[in-house]
């Protein structure tokens, strides 16, 4: 009896620890009271005021765009970098590349942000590009630190990839380019997807670096939320968060469903 109770109790506590804050957020997004912490009845008022909010929705849209572009750039750069690190036998500066590529993983955001800001300012005065700070500089900054994450994810998958698979394809008449698209790419695809998603999430989430390199008119969602919360939590933020959680949950649900269906029945 004791054993059969322990697992459910621990599991419940674990889930509570992870999800209680989110549940509270979702519940309070339907609060009728303007004061976020006081419950006074069910209402969708905060959703309608979100819809008419002049700041939040444009910022969310901007953040999504930045995240998608930065993640895509990081995916390409990170994959190339991982490929060079895993596949090229030895080249000058390989060790340096390996070390510098993982540096952004441990670098505090404040330092990365400051460093990028200084670089952009210096570049503007030297070559005149990028002119001023805005969406472009945020995308560059995000792509820079996300590349490190993509590299790590793709690198581990590439290391596990049996070289003889590519040799076998070549042996059967595939040119190196074909080998890449027929064998290498499909096999590392899961790593590419998770690398892109990781980069996307990191970019969407970033407040510190974006604050350094953003300019007028380019406030990302975390920046807007942060500035709003300083004046007390606005219920619209709760509503927006609930919508985002809804999208994420649906995405995870669909992904799991697809994976379950694709997983073949055991022989």
């Amino acid at each position, binding site marked *: 009896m004791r054993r059969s109770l322990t697992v459910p109790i621990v599991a419940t506590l674990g889930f509570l620890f992870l999800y209680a804050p989110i549940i509270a957020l979702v519940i309070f997004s339907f609060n009728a009271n303007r004061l976020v912490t006081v419950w006074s009845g069910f209402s969708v008022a905060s959703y309608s005021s979100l819809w008419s909010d002049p700041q939040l929705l444009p910022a969310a849209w901007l953040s999504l765009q930045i995240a998608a572009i930065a993640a895509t750039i990081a995916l390409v750069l990170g994959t190339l970098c991982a490929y060079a690190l895993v596949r090229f036998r030895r080249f000058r500066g390989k060790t340096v590349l390996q070390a510098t590529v993982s540096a952004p993983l441990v670098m505090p955001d404040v330092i990365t942000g400051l460093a990028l800001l200084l670089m952009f300012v210096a570049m503007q005065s030297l070559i005149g590009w990028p002119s001023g700070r805005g969406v472009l500089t945020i995308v560059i900054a995000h792509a820079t630190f996300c590349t490190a994450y993509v590299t790590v994810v793709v690198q581990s998958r590439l290391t596990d990839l*049996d070289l*003889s*698979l590519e*040799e*076998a*394809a*070549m*042996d*059967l*008449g*595939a*040119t190196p380019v*074909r080998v890449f698209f*027929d*064998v290498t790419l*499909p*096999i590392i695809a899961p790593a590419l997807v998770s690398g892109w998603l990781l980069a996307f999430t990191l970019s969407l989430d970033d407040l510190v670096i974006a604050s350094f390199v953003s300019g007028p008119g380019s406030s990302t969602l975390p920046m807007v939320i942060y500035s709003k919360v300083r004046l007390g939590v606005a219920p619209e933020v709760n509503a927006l968060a609930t919508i985002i959680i809804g999208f994420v949950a649906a995405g995870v649900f669909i992904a799991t469903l697809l994976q379950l269906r694709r997983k*073949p029945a*055991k*022989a």
Partner: protein
Amino acid sequence: MAKKPQLVADTRPWRDPAAKPFVRIRNVTKKFGDIAAVADVSLNIYKGELFCLLGGSGSGKSTLLRMLAGFETPTSGTIEIDGQDMSKVAPYNRPVNMMFQSYALFPHMSVAQNIAYGLKRDGLPRAEIEARVAELLQLVKLTGYENRKPNQLSGGQRQRVALARALAKRPKLLLLDEPLGALDKKLREETQFELVKIQETLGVTFIVVTHDQEEAMSLATRIGVMNQGEIAMVGEPTEIYEFPNSRFVANFIGSANMVEGVVTEDEPDHVRIQSKELGTDIYVSHGVDCSPEQILWWAIRPEKINLSREKPAPQAGVPSETNMVKGYVEDIAYLGDMTVYQVKLDNGRYIRVTKTNALRGDPEAISWDETVWASWAGTSGSVLVS
């Protein structure tokens, strides 16, 4: 199971000096840094052969195979396949296919897609590809498994898919890297048999790399024994076993009792070797290319030594007091089909003798702690000068 020679003369082209080799490896060396993985190897392999490259790990056998496939380029020397120089030919343009040790089946493709991959690269019409795939699946007895993924197959099935995929393009030459290495013993024996049958039916030239001498002996028409990047000996399985050309080959293939000796008589029809190590004189009843006083080695297989309780009568044509030595049975290993005797000679050296257990539970069998005489015929041992 080895390929049966149908007509002695024309199935053994390597015995015919005028025969044209199908694969001609000339003075091939492959260096990785300063280390020569393959050192000055020259080898001729003929059409329809099942040639085994046999050697321990690091002997260069896999590197040689990879050079044939085109994954490595020789540092020096040339490789010709069917009269065509391969040095400028990329792996994907060679008339060669390879079966990988890890099988290297594409995990994201089904069995049928794996087999069809090479055919699709050749741009064959779809109907023809389907027919070929069906034919190959039948050949490797996997009809009905078309839509399985490699991770839904057993080790033996994967091995057969890999074989079918490698055969799909009807290559002139098939390279097999440890084709049976990952299978368990029983399955390996069955598969050996099938492999030879498929090879005979299709008439493809096979080059097999293996570290397993039993596999090489049972499969091959000829074996090339490799040691430290060099070919130590090339020959038919019986030649390799019965007439090894060096101490390395004698030791590497099967087991052998090997002793050092000095030539005391060197006649055209016999040689007498004095061996302190064995404690007796060895009489070899054929001529050997050596000189008196030369130090050389003599090796004999454990199954070619007789054991008897009584001192054996002198053999015809062999001087008395030679080719026999007294000892003491110190240990016995019963293996079922045969028994291994560890005999300690009077001078302290051990020799190994095996006897087939022809009788069930033979009460007369020699037992522990018995004093025995070991003897052998004048033709049983091999004289080795290197």
